[in-house]
């Protein structure tokens, strides 16, 4: 098809000092290797992340000395790289990946979004026993699909410390869209802190990382804008609910440095093009806890695939991508000038940034961040009807008496065309799920035989997260019958957006009218949203089903799904 090889360009040479205005923008360069003895090797630029092709792969997981912020830290790397090498496969090939663990703790690799046998899925405790320190495990499966995917550790917090990498599976029939350049844009969130410490901090003070809380000044500003009575009423309602409308993310730019292909904003990852070329950008959100609002000022982006699956081309100026999600977009820069790829964290606490440029090293203006958004009554399922807020606070039939659930939405919104908090009416054309139509329709046209409704629940202050008010350790597995077509209905009874990921099977999202909409592996559910998708239980075994916000998952927002042959009894799930 005349495509140039896919590359992740090397980081541009380091620029001057560390900027620390709003968040840690990082030092220039990428994973700067440390000389023996821990001193920073001057003038060293990290090698470009490798592209590995073929059917047989050897991956080695180990620690890597990195320095994203000016402070040396250890990351979890694959073949000495953060992000892990790009794996390029061909649809239909039998893939064999030998993974050697050189860490002192167990590890694993999960192939995010791939259909494969359950024992190859890489979730320790469900698919297999994990890969012990010093041990080797060989994954073998056939690449049955094509498109952009990614892989990451499913062991404890290794995803947060760097173990994530892209996968591109070339379609057997050739690429649908002819492009001259093809880049992976892998977004992630780096912290210098030990993720175990972040988790403990959230349990101690769940608002620790929120530096956009409501202040007396905000109250006065609101009163000036909308009148004292209204401002006081708003304050009182949120107070009544004992909630904070600024709680958009749990971990913010206060500790995170947002990376693009492993490069800090100051390091400025860049992808080259020549004027008029069609450039494919494969956006992967490999972060642990972040949602990114992505735009390229001056360029329209044509979305051609969602979660690896081709969709009807739709042109937008901005899209939100949640942890685990993937979007392929095509841009065609009309001018011989640089364009900033701007990926702002949903809460406005920081951004990842890179540049599409005619030559490496060029830079375009970085847009101002949007004002930090706040949740509205509508986000709490109130549809601007403030009088019903107290009803929400009181009525808890489904989760009555559960100390781990702090709210229930009385009137969920089933629309798909809401771009979400912070993106409504911002003057830009923003992608929504209503814009996404997977080509070729559903893989399985049977109507669902049964329906499972699950509520996304949690308690902000206690930092407890669950499905239906029950944490992973408190709930039996969900049972799917092999071969059945079923509908999952998710109702978000929390004030946070959750990316819900089902392993091993597609999630075919339905429109509010019940028509097939889009096929995904990771589904964003807004606060107070009700969303349904159909699943075909095509592969027997034990699968993971969870929120892809890593710390929500670790806190219990996880269920085992057991696909059992019809008539069989589910195996005992946990000892």
């Amino acid at each position, binding site marked *: 098809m005349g495509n140039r090889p896919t590359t992740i360009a090397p980081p541009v040479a380091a620029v001057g000092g560390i900027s620390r205005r709003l968040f840690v923008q990082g030092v220039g360069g990428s994973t700067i290797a440390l000389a023996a003895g821990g001193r920073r090797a001057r003038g060293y630029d990290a090698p470009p992340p490798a592209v590995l092709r073929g059917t047989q792969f050897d991956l080695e997981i180990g620690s890597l000395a990195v320095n994203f912020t000016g402070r040396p830290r250890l990351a979890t790397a694959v073949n000495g790289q953060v992000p892990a090498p790009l794996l390029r496969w061909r649809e239909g090939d039998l893939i064999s990946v030998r993974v050697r663990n050189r860490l002192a703790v167990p590890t694993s690799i999960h192939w995010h979004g791939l259909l494969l046998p359950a024992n190859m899925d890489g979730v*320790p405790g469900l698919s297999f026993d*994990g890969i012990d320190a010093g041990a080797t495990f060989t994954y073998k499966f056939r690449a049955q699909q094509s498109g952009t995917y990614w892989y990451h550790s499913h*062991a*404890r917090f290794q995803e947060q410390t760097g173990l994530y990498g892209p996968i591109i599976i070339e379609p057997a029939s050739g690429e649908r869209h002819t492009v001259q350049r093809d880049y992976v844009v892998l977004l992630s969130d780096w912290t210098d802190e030990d993720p175990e410490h972040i988790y403990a901090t959230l349990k101690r003070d769940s608002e620790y990382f929120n530096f956009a809380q409501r202040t007396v000044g905000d109250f006065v500003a609101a009163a000036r804008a909308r009148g004292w009575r209204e401002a006081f009423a708003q304050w009182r309602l949120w107070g009544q609910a*004992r909630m904070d409308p600024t709680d958009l993310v749990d971990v913010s730019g206060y500790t995170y440095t947002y990376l693009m292909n492993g490069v800090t904003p100051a390091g400025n990852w860049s992808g080259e093009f020549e004027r008029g070329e069609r450039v494919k950008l494969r956006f992967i959100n490999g972060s642990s806890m972040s949602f990114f609002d992505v735009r390229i000022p001056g360029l329209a982006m044509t979305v051609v695939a969602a979660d690896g699956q081709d969709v009807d081309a739709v042109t937008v100026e901005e899209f939100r991508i949640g942890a685990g999600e993937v979007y392929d977009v095509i841009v065609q820069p009309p001018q011989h000038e640089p364009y900033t790829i701007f990926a702002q964290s949903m809460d406005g606490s920081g951004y990842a940034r890179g540049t599409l440029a005619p030559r490496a090293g060029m830079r375009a203006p970085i847009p101002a961040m949007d004002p930090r958004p706040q949740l509205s009554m509508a986000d709490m399922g109130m549809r601007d009807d403030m009088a019903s807020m107290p009803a929400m606070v009181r009525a*808890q039939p489904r989760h009555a008496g559960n*100390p781990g659930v702090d709210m229930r939405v009385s009137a969920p919104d089933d629309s798909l065309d809401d771009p979400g908090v912070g993106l409504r009416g911002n003057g830009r054309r923003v992608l929504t799920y209503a814009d996404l139509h997977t080509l070729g329709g559903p893989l399985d046209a049977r109507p669902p035989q049964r329906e499972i409704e699950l509520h996304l629940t949690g308690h902000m202050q206690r930092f407890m997260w669950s499905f239906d008010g029950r944490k992973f350790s408190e709930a039996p597995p969900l049972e799917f019958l092999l071969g059945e077509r079923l509908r999952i209905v998710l109702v978000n009874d929390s004030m946070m957006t959750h990316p819900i990921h089902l392993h091993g099977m597609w999630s075919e999202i339905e429109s509010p009218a019940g028509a097939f909409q889009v096929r995904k592996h990771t589904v964003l559910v807004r606060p107070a949203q009700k969303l349904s998708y159909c699943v075909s239980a095509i592969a027997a075994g034990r699968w993971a089903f969870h929120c892809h916000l890593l710390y929500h998952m670790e806190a219990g927002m996880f269920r085992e799904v057991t696909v059992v042959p019809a008539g069989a009894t589910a195996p005992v799930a946990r000892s």
Partner: protein
Amino acid sequence: MAQSMDMNDAARLGMLWLDQLEWRGVDEPNGAAWQGEGWYGGDYNKAWVRTEGESYSGRTEDARAELFWDHAVARWWNLEVGGRQDFGTGPARSWAALGVRGVAPQGFDVEATLYAGDASRTAARLKIEYELLITQRLVLQPEMEMNLYGRADPARDIGAGVADLEVGLRLRYELRREFAPYAGVVWARHYGATGDFPGAAGANPNDLSLAVGLRVWL
């Protein structure tokens, strides 16, 4: 399995929290006061310790330490069952304790505890606290604490009914969330056993003092 999964949503964690460690400038002599808490446990059940006290001229006047089993019973409320030990001036006293801890509407942090001691002594404590952000790091914290007793305890200079009432207003600056120096004013009223001034030498029963201190947690 959950073990090999490395997922532990029932993990036990802990926290040590010195809410107040302060020097109080009263007429004379100067005093020091502390209020601290600590917990260890999971989401539903925790071991909870609480201590507070005051000392003047290097002598501990009125101090207590409490140990609870803290159990999450409702969305915003935890039940606390345990005991309390008083020390400082006068004979030590031991109590059984039963209380609630939680967040009231509008975000008021509330601790309400009932106590039963030997010789049919009874007592109650109520503490209400609020936080108002001036900026993201500058926090104004009003606080009210009241102790009630079923009957007077002259040996500890405690009157029946409301034995003491303390209202504080502290302004802290969070250099980090875990480390915040503060300054504030504390108005305290002590009702002695005889309805008279308390035994503490020089301490005024109805005084306004300045407080300067640190709020630290781990």
